[in-house]
């Protein structure tokens, strides 16, 4: 039922990804994704965003199948294929995925 995925998306397409995830997810399951910023230096601005954790197996299947995702989302398959090819979706633990892609969490300098 659940599978682990680390999903890294470029900042340029993050709004599209957020809208897509919300559209194909049950209520309360797909909103506010990709809000954690990444960059090569760990400093702002974020060049990528990450969501990592357990997602529904049906959601994961769609990420592996552009044609099915395009049909569910009612978006042209070419657009979905281009979107997915820009993203890094893997079963790697998030630390490994960040190391592999050379990205770091954008640091927050917050008061105590």
């Amino acid at each position: 039922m659940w599978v682990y995925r680390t999903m890294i998306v470029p900042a340029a397409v993050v709004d599209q990804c957020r809208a897509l995830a919300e559209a194909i997810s049950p209520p309360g399951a797909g909103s506010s994704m990709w809000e954690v910023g990444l960059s090569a230096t760990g400093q702002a601005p974020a060049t990528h965003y990450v969501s990592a954790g357990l997602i529904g197996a049906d959601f994961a299947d769609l990420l592996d199948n552009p044609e099915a995702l395009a049909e569910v989302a009612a978006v042209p398959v070419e657009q979905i294929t281009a979107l997915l090819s820009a993203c890094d979706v893997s079963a790697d633990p998030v630390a490994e995925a960040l190391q592999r892609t050379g990205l770091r969490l954008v640091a927050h300098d917050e008061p105590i």
Partner: protein
Amino acid sequence: MRLRATRLAAIAAHAGAPLNPITIWRNGEQAVHLSIEFGMRRNAAVGFDPAQCVLFQDSAATVPVTGTEQPLGYLKDLSGRGNHFWQPSNTASRPIIRLDENSRHYANPDGVDDWLESVNTIDLSGTDAVTLVASMRKDSDAAAAVLFELSTSTSSNSGAIQIRAPQIAATPNFHFASKGTSEAGAAAAGFPAAYKAVLTGIGRISTDTAILRVNGVQVAASSSDQGTGNYGNYKAYLFRRAGTSLPFTGRFYGLTLASRQLAGTELTRLEQWHRNMGRIY
């Protein structure tokens, strides 16, 4: 006032049975003033009774947690005050329930995007004293991390408390802060990740008390001015500040928040229960 400790016995594993917190503090007694109580320990005595299940995979609290490698979407409060927590946004931000080397269950926030928040605000406006006990293991000192915080930010809200693990980046410490209209913090170093501990924060605004205990031993205290007033009526957050920053990574075995200053036997019993829950010896 006397606390009655009731220990639920018979902890065992049954395939398919829900994982539930158990408690030594039964909140029929209002004198206890517990505001939150959580635990990740399996309670076989409950059996498979959805009405008594308190850990759920989904944010609607309809699908019980029945094993490891499942998400924690909703965490019911056993204090009797209805201070439940949930992950309202997305499945990937739910901590994963896992089993440690001592067969203890824990929630495992990933230090990236996992967090929980109280479903409603937690009203501590009637008190200026709190005791917060958490059993946990921090797995990183790389960045500042919020384990628990009342309000979206202690620094910008009066009547707030927080525990950080660690307080600031690249520092092997724990930190407890209490704030009326001014903030006082107690921090202690010498606890490099991965560090498993029972953390206790004791705060009292009117007496300028901020005490941090680690594994039942006081390791830091501050008598800095905390200003005036009581604690607030805010949402509370686990594992990230306001659900947006300072992510905590590690193991979360349980947490108890009492709306008064515990001491003596009351405190040591509660800390011992948390030590047992995570086998933190």
